[in-house]
């Protein structure tokens, strides 16, 4: 999208062929738009340069965009419905929390499509800028797209206003961008984890339903109840950085153990006033075996102690 603008791609005939909607931005065509009830297109004029189909929620009886633009515009009277190949679910475990040393963001790395593991090594935590990462849950494709749109808008804001938009402002911007798609099948639940220069650590949950929540601890996805179970008991403000990271790892591990749709690896990001830093991905299989060994040792120890007590 951004590359397209820089290369001046908009002005080429190829662009008109691939993105016929964008020539609807011209005001002289706006009367066609109101005829077919596509009012939103007029308002999208301010987002010039962005292929408009990203910003238009599909209407139930919408006219499909013809690959060959025809003048005058003639609608074909059939509605486009795409049947889903598999049921969508928020198969994931992501979490974020604030403590004295900054913000920790953690997530698993499994992408599921119904009962199939579509990819065991997905990146669910994406940096947006030096002091903001976003963890994603919901539909993978939607999340990837909206993260890119958000990164682009933040960068544009930075270039235009010569300062970084605050995390709260970023969350509000994202929430308002997602609002037209409420009620459609867009499914994104993002947690923005960042550090504001003025305010310090910030954690905001934004969802395609429109919810926007500021808080100290969030976990999202099908594995989130399990993660909350671990986090709620052991999270304290005064944790050290190592303790916080190991708590995040433990929470994701317990969630992936119980939840079928989460698993494989865990990614952990730590955000401080100096920016974000990423830990090496860890395979949770190793964590499982370590946990098994630890339990075996405890059982051994207890047996030994009871035998000694019985003897002595």
């Amino acid at each position, binding site marked *: 999208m951004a590359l397209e603008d820089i290369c001046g791609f908009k002005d080429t005939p190829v662009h008109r062929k691939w993105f016929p909607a964008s020539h609807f931005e011209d005001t002289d065509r706006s009367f066609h738009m109101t005829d077919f009830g596509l009012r939103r297109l007029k308002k999208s004029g301010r987002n010039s340069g962005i292929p408009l189909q990203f910003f238009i929620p599909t209407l139930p009886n919408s006219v499909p965009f013809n690959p060959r633009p025809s003048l005058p515009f003639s609608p074909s009277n059939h509605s486009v419905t795409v049947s889903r190949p598999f049921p969508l679910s928020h198969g994931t475990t992501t979490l974020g929390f604030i403590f004295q040393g900054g913000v920790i963001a953690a997530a698993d790395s499994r992408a599921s499509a119904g009962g199939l593991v579509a990819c065991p090594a997905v990146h669910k935590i994406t940096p947006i800028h030096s002091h903001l990462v976003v963890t994603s849950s919901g539909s993978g494709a939607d999340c990837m797209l909206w993260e890119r749109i958000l990164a682009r808008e933040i960068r544009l804001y930075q270039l235009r206003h010569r300062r970084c938009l605050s995390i709260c402002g970023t969350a509000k911007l994202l929430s308002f961008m997602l609002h037209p798609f409420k009620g459609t099948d867009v499914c994104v639940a993002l947690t923005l984890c960042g550090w504001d220069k003025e305010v310090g650590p910030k954690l905001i949950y934004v969802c395609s339903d*429109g*919810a926007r*929540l500021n808080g100290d601890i969030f976990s999202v996805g099908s594995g989130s109840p399990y993660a909350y179970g671990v986090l709620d008991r052991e999270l304290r403000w005064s944790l050290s950085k190592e303790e916080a990271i190991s708590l995040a790892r433990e929470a994701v591990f317990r969630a992936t153990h119980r939840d079928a749709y989460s698993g494989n690896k865990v990614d952990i990001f730590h955000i401080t006033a100096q920016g974000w830093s990423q830990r090496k991905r860890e395979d949770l299989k190793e964590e499982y075996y370590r946990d098994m060994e630890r339990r075996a040792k405890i059982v051994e120890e207890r047996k030994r102690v009871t035998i000694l007590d019985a003897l002595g």
Partner: protein
Amino acid sequence: MEYLIGIQGPDFVLVAADNVAASSIIQMKHDYDKMFKLSEKILLLCVGEAGDTAQFAEYIQKNVQLYKMRNGYELSPSAAANFTRKNLADYLRSRTPYHVNLLLAGYDETDGPGLYYMDYLSSLAKAPFAAHGYGAYLTLSILDRHYRPDLTRDEAVDLLKKCVEELNKRFIMNLPSFTVRLIDKEGIHDLEKITSGAK
């Protein structure tokens, strides 16, 4: 799952809202404030569908503030309530209706205190006491029994506490704490949060 309540006295309005922000079965926040300050003496309490609440309430809030900036004086509670209702009604038969239930509480210099009940079908009623949510089924009879138009502030807070007690006893959902605010001719005052003790 969410609960709002308002009680109007002779020269004040007492309002309370629960503090839970939930997403399916999980409480995502325990200290979420559902009251939006429209002006120095008007509060809008808003519950309903996840994104619609904040979106609609903030829209009304900004428009009320814009009115003050443009005209130099604030909207009265009655005017603000009717403005809110008009917006709800306009969106009701559009493709994107707002599913929100509201209580608007305010104090007017000339008319005194006012409590307005609005629901997602854009009905509007000025009432001496009102409640929203499943909890309303349990507490409206308590309000009917014990309400008098000449309640003092302490009596109103006691009545509110009676309602919360009933919710803690009989309501299936755990609502651990409630934000309480009082509006009178001096403005909006934060009162002590009502907590159920069990954390």
